[in-house]
């Protein structure tokens, strides 16, 4: 038993040291001993503002994949991108997911063309934990993060269950199967095979708009992990292969996806998306067993993604081949109060992209993007009040050129239970406008590229390759205060973050029947304030509440406007109950999540015929999710849940739904659920 714990500690330490951004939390563990371990925890002493979601937190909402993992996390907003594709988008600090660096085990993963549906390719049960960093984050994982970083750690063959089976079924006729199989091959080698399959058959149209509320289709997802661990030599290594195929069919109720009638124009609006992703990773970490502050980490990843979409009159085909590699060396200067991380990284993306929009516009966007760079991060921890980390990286990019990315994080312990975190940093990235704004194809909008000087009311037609790389500064402060309230633990967190774009590809939805892409002239910023209070009512009941205010504005052609379909105000409340564990291992768990989402601005529809105009703002909406879990014993548990218990339905999410091939057709005006109330249930079975 002892050796196992030692081994686990060792692995934990190793993964912290060798694979990048996570802070050294070994000291922290001692400070935050609670009676019941919190499933969602904000780091108190680390310089960065990191919230860690454990697998227990992810079980609170039977999340099926990464995009649905944030239902109980107020820092992340989740919403549908359009009324047809069923795709969920996430936002942090008021900015959409392309501004977040999303990595899987510290390899930047949901990027480029994967922005469209990539979050759906990480099944929830494979996720061991998620780290959410607000603010720019470490320089180790690259220059792309603008508003924050999300890292998902997957299950490791060495400590995951020998066998795990999860079955899920919902009223939407969505069925999911997740299995994990892990086995020890020898003293040093462990193997894991993780399988995911889902299918969705329901083609209900509960809001009676003539369109299926969500697509039908399915996914097969296979993950192969080979893990090498040698504590004596201080080595750990992973060799991973992942294959995903995902197909979705969507459209009008009468639409049939049949290749035999492919050549004929279908009388009904509809289409399909077929995606395939193959990924191979090699990771290796070395920690000097005698001198654990010295370590070396290397990772190499190859990714091949291809996606073909036929959507109404439009076609979007994209193929992306990517290579990513980095080498990180960890050590100290003088003593362990002064830590350094330094290394090099390389990234290569080859895009082969074709767009045919509304049968009148063709874009061939074959392009190569590659960059290489070096980084250095210094961390100072005086073991008392100050924890500071300062990072800088320099990269050479074939399109952007050479550029510097500085980032600074500071944690100051004002009182023993109160800490203040301050951060500032820069992010730079290449936009992938079609994958990031995939919902535009679910409308009849015509694509325009603009060039300056736009603001003289002269529209200079330009092209895709005139769009500049995006770059922004992000500043933030966070005050964390733990205290006792009526003899129980409570924690108050106040966050304020400001993102200021230097360059941005402005996506302008303000002209009906058109979508405009142009370089920012003027200002674009996002301000976000969040107050979060968590309270341990009893040792069995935890309450988490949050209020968010965001202010996201951009200078569009038509003036400075609030970003459309982005709520200014949101209130969140989560109530979690867990009974004491009985001798036979049985537990009851109950979760209740309430969200109030304030009004959101619709893009302008003023120039539409009166019948096709929307209000200026959406109504505010109230959403409730709830779930009951019964753990019968160590190996078996069942859960039953209701999503959207108030049965909220947006009745008219599609403009001109009766004329889908007309110029006014638009399904991007989605602000709430379309399907209404949904029941689901599931089982989990495991053998340790």
């Amino acid at each position: 038993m002892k050796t196992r714990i030692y081994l686990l500690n060792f692995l934990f330490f190793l993964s912290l040291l060798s694979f990048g951004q996570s802070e050294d939390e070994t000291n922290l563990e001692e400070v935050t001993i609670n009676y019941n371990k919190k499933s969602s925890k904000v780091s108190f002493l680390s310089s960065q503002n990191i919230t860690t979601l454990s697998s227990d937190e992810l079980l609170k909402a039977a999340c099926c994949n990464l995009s649905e993992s944030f239902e109980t996390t107020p820092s992340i907003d989740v919403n549908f991108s359009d009324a047809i594709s069923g795709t969920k988008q996430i936002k942090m600090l008021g900015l959409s997911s392309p501004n977040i660096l999303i990595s899987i085990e510290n390899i930047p993963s949901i990027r480029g063309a994967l922005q469209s549906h990539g979050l759906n390719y990480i099944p929830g049960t494979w996720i061991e934990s998620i780290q959410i960093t607000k603010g720019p984050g470490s320089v180790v994982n690259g220059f792309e993060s603008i508003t924050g970083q999300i890292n998902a750690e997957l299950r490791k063959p060495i400590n995951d269950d020998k066998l795990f089976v999860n079955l899920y079924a919902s009223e939407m006729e969505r069925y999911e199967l997740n299995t994990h199989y892990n086995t020890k091959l020898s003293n040093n080698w462990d193997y894991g095979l993780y399988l995911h399959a889902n299918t969705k058959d329901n083609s209900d149209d509960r809001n009676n708009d003539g369109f299926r509320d969500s697509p039908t289709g399915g996914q097969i997802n296979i993950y192969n992990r080979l893990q090498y661990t040698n504590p004596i030599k201080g080595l750990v290594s992973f060799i991973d292969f992942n294959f995903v195929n995902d197909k979705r069919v969507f459209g009008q109720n009468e639409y049939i996806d049949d290749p035999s009638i492919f050549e004929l124009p279908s009388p009904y609006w509809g289409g399909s998306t077929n995606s395939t992703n193959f990924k191979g990773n090699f990771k290796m970490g070395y920690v000097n067993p005698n001198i654990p502050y010295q370590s070396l980490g290397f990772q190499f990843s190859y990714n091949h993604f291809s996606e073909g979409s036929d959507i109404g009159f439009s076609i979007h085909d994209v193929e992306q081949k990517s290579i990513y590699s980095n080498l990180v060396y960890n050590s100290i200067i003088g003593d362990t109060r002064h830590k350094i991380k330094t290394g090099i990284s390389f990234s290569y993306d080859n895009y082969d992209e074709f767009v045919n929009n509304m049968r009148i516009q063709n874009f061939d966007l074959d392009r190569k993007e590659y960059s290489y760079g070096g980084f250095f991060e210094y961390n100072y921890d005086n073991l008392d009040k100050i924890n500071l980390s300062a990072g800088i990286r320099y990269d050479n990019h074939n399109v952007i050129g050479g550029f510097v990315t500085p980032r600074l994080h500071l944690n100051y312990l004002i009182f023993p239970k109160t800490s203040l975190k301050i951060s500032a940093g820069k992010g730079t990235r290449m936009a992938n406008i079609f994958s990031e704004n995939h919902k535009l194809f679910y409308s009849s909008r015509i694509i325009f590229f603009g060039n300056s000087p736009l603001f003289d009311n002269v529209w200079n037609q330009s092209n895709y390759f005139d769009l500049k790389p995006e770059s922004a500064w992000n500043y933030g402060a966070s005050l964390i205060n733990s205290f006792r309230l009526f003899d129980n633990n409570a924690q108050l967190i106040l966050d304020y973050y400001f993102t200021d774009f230097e360059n941005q590809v402005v996506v302008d939805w303000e002209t009906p029947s058109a979508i405009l892409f142009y370089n920012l002239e003027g200002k674009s910023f996002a301000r976000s304030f969040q107050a979060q209070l968590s309270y341990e009512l009893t040792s069995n009941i935890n309450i988490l509440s949050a209020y968010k205010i965001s202010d996201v504005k951009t200078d569009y052609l038509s003036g400075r406007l609030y970003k459309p379909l982005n709520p200014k105000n949101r209130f969140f409340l989560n109530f979690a109950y867990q009974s004491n564990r009985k001798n036979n291992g049985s537990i009851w768990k109950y979760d209740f999540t309430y969200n109030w989402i304030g009004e959101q601005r619709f893009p302008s529809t003023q120039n539409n015929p009166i019948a096709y105009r929307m209000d200026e703002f959406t109504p505010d909406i109230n959403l409730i999710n709830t779930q009951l879990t019964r753990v019968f014993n160590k190996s078996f548990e069942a859960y039953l849940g209701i999503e959207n218990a108030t049965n909220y339905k947006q009745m008219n999410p599609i403009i001109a739904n009766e004329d889908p091939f007309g110029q006014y057709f638009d399904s991007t005006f989605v602000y709430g659920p379309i399907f209404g109330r949904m029941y689901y249930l599931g089982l989990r079975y495991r053998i340790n």
Partner: protein
Amino acid sequence: MKNILFALIVLSCSLLFSQTEVKTFFVDGVCGMCKDRIEKSCIKVKGIKMVNWNLDNRQIKVVYNTKKIDLPEIHSFIASIGHDTDMIKASEKSYNSLDECCKYRDETIVIDHKKKGINNN
């Protein structure tokens, strides 16, 4: 390219020019406060690169630069803050400066901590 070279040079320099010694020995103490005191005081000593004191077996692991400090000096430093080592016993004066709960020579305090430890588990 220059930057990559620079990074490599930094890396190899720090790997090559270290006269690093690792030693593990016994240091008496009794609680988390002792651990805090031992580790936080030692790390501030010139030449000591890393310290880790284990409360369960009361062993300290010290990584230090042999050019800047030697082992007897480390022992005498630890004794000077009030903790006995397997080489040097702390003076009465420095032992007395410890907080009440850290008086590891007092049987009752040691037993007290052990009881608490059991209760916490």
